[in-house]
C-alpha cells in the first residue's frame, strides 16, 4: 500500500515539477524578448513609465540574474505561495485573485463531475442489453459526448435564457445583488449556476453512459456472469455484480478525464461570464496579464493532480483486489 502510494506520489510530484518548470520556461524561451513584447502590448506609456515598467518586469522575471538563480527564485516564491501580482486585478496578489474565483469553479466542477458520473453510470447500466432503452441512450450519448462544451452552453443559454427566459443569461449572481447570506441571494446564485452546470453535466453524462454501457456488456459476458446464470441466479444478481465490476474501470476513467472536464469548465464559464477561474483566465488573456495566467496554470495543474490522487484513493476503496494485492495475498 505504501509502495503504491509512494509511486503515485512520485509521479504526481514529478508531473508538478515538470509542469511548473514549463510554466517558468515559457516566458524565457519564447521567441522574442518577453519584456519588449509585454511593453509593446501595454500601449501608450510615458518614457519614464516605460522605463519603470521595463525595470519592474526585468526584476520580476529576474532576467538579469543567472538562469539557475532565476529558477531557484521561482521555486522559492512558488513554495511560499507568491505567484506575483495581477495587472488585471489592479495589483492584487495573483494567488488572492485566483482564490476568490476558486469557489465558483469548484461549485461548478464538483457537482458536475460527481453527478454526471453517477447519473451516466446508472443510465448506461440500465441501458445495456435492454433493447429500446439502449437504442435511445446510445445515440444521445454519442451526440452529447461529441458536443463542444461551449457550444452546448451557447445552445442552452439561447434556448433557456434568451428565448424562454427561465434562467439568467450570464454572471455568478444578479447585478442588483450584493453577496450576502440571504435566501434571495442564494436562490439567485443557484439560478445563475444552473446553466453552466447543466452544460458540463450533460456532456459528461453522455460519455459516462456510453462507457458504462460498453463496460457492463463486457462484464455480462464474463465467466463469472455465465457461471451465475448457469446456476440459475436471477438477472438482478448477475447485473448487480456486473455493475459493480464495471464501475472500477469507470473510476480509472474519471482520473483520465479530469483534465478534459476542467478544460470544459473553463470555456463554459466564459460562455456564461460565470465568475470562476475560467473567466479569470479569459480576462487574463485579454488583458495580457501573464502573472495571473501563469498562476492559473499552476492552480489548474495542482488541482488536477490532487483530484487524481483522490481518485487513486477512491479506487483502492472500491476495488478489494488492490487491497489484497497490497497486503501480499497468499497465492
Amino acid at each position, binding site marked *: 500500500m505504501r509502495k503504491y502510494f509512494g509511486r503515485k506520489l512520485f509521479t504526481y510530484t514529478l508531473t508538478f515539477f515538470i509542469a511548473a518548470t514549463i510554466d517558468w520556461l515559457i516566458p524565457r524561451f519564447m521567441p522574442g524578448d518577453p519584456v519588449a513584447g509585454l511593453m509593446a502590448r501595454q500601449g501608450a506609456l510615458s518614457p519614464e513609465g516605460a522605463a519603470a515598467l521595463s525595470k519592474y518586469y526585468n526584476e520580476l522575471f529576474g532576467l538579469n540574474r543567472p538562469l539557475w538563480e532565476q529558477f531557484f527564485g521561482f521555486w522559492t516564491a512558488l513554495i511560499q505561495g507568491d505567484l506575483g501580482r495581477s495587472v488585471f486585478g489592479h495589483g492584487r496578489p495573483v494567488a488572492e485573485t485566483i482564490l476568490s474565483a476558486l469557489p465558483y469553479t469548484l461549485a461548478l466542477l464538483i457537482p458536475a463531475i460527481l453527478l454526471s458520473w453517477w447519473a451516466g453510470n446508472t443510465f448506461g447500466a440500465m441501458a445495456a442489453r435492454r433493447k429500446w432503452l439502449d437504442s435511445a441512450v446510445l445515440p444521445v450519448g454519442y451526440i452529447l459526448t461529441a458536443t463542444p462544451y461551449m457550444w452546448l452552453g451557447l445552445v442552452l443559454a439561447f434556448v433557456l435564457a434568451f428565448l424562454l427566459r427561465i434562467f439568467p443569461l450570464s454572471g455568478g449572481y444578479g447585478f442588483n445583488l450584493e453577496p450576502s447570506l440571504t435566501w434571495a441571494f442564494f436562490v439567485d446564485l443557484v439560478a445563475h449556476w444552473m446553466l453552466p452546470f447543466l452544460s458540463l453535466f450533460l456532456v459528461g453524462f453522455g460519455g459516462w453512459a456510453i462507457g458504462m454501457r460498453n463496460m457492463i456488456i463486457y462484464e455480462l459476458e464474463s465467466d463469472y456472469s455465465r457461471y451465475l446464470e448457469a446456476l440459475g*441466479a436471477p438477472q438482478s444478481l448477475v447485473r448487480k*455484480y456486473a455493475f459493480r465490476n464495471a464501475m*472500477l474501470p469507470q473510476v480509472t476513467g474519471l482520473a483520465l478525464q479530469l483534465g478534459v472536464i476542467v478544460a470544459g469548465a473553463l470555456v463554459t464559464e466564459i460562455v456564461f461570464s460565470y465568475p470562476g477561474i475560467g473567466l479569470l483566465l479569459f480576462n487574463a488573456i485579454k488583458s495580457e496579464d501573464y502573472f495571473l495566467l501563469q498562476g492559473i496554470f499552476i492552480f489548474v495543474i495542482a488541482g488536477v493532480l490532487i483530484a487524481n490522487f483522490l481518485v487513486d484513493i477512491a479506487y483502492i476503496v472500491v476495488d*478489494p483486489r488492490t487491497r489484497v494485492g497490497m497486503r501480499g495475498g497468499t497465492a
Partner: protein
Amino acid sequence: MSLQVSDLRVYYRSLAGDVQALDGATFSIADKEIMGLAGESGCGKSTLGNSLIRLDGRMKYVAGSVTLDGNKLPIWDQRGMNEFRFRDVSVIPQYAMSAMNPTRKIGKMTGELLESRGESYQDIKPELLRRLDLVGLQQDVLNRYPIELSGGMKQRMVMVISTLLNPSLLIADEITSALDVSTQRAVAETLVSFRDHGFVKSMMVITHDLSILYQTADSILVMYAGKLAEKAPTATIIDKPRHPYTKMLISSLPEVGIRYANKKLAGIPGSPPALLNPPAGCRFRARCPLAFDKCVEEPPFIQIAPDHSVACWKVTGSDA
C-alpha cells in the same frame, strides 16, 4: 434412469448458416453413473454438456427432449430452466478458474447466490464447511477473494459451490485439462468421491482425454463430428471398442511403457468434416478404412449388446 436424452439437436448460429454441432443425441445416464463424454475438439461434446444446463447466446435448440428424474427439462427456455439449474442440473464449467466474481469474497458470493435461489445460507453453511474440509480447503477461504487462491484451490472451490444443492446431474466440462498431472489426479478422484458421498446422483464428465475417463468413469460415450459414435461401459470402450473411430483413436494413444523404438503408433489420417452443411451419411466415412457403399446412408445408433451402442453399418449390419 436419472437422465434421458432423446434425439437432441442443438445448432450454432453463424453468419454463414447453422453449424450442426450436435445432431441427434440419444442416450441415458443411470443413477449413480459417471458417464464420460469423449471426443476431439469440435465434436459437439461441450455443446451437448452446455445444452443440458444453459444454451449460450449463439446456440439454438432445434429438436429433441431431455428428461431428468421424470421431469422434462425446458432447455430452450432460459427462464424456465432457472428452476432446475443448480438444484437438479449443475455444472463445473471449463472456465472454473475464473468462474467466481473477482471482487466479492467467496463466502459472500456463495451466500448471495444461494439466497437468490431462495435457499438459506445459514442453513447450508455447516454442510458447506464440511465439504470444504473434504476437498482440503480451509474454512478461511470463504473470507478471501478469488485472487488469493491458487488455480487448483479455485477449481476445488467451484466444485464445492456447484454441488452444494446436491444436484441430480452434474456436468463437469474439461475440468482437468488445464491442470498439472499431480493435481489432475486429485481433482478426478474428488469428482468420484462426490458421487460416492451422494452429493450428486449422476455425472457427465466431458473431456478429450480418454485416459482420465478410464480412471474415473463407469461408462464412456464417444462422439464424432456432432454425432454419437459409441457408448459402452468403460472397460468395453477401452479394451473392446467396436466403432472404427474408437478403435483407431485408442490405438493412437501413447502410454507410459510404449516406446517408438518398439511399437510405432499411428494416427487417423484426414480431419473431421466441417459441420456447416456436413456430408450426408456416416461422418467418419472419409477417414474410415472400412467404409463401404452403405456408409452414404446415416448409420443408426443401435444397441449391439447390453449397455453397448454403436453407430456403424459394419458393426450393426447393413440391414439394421
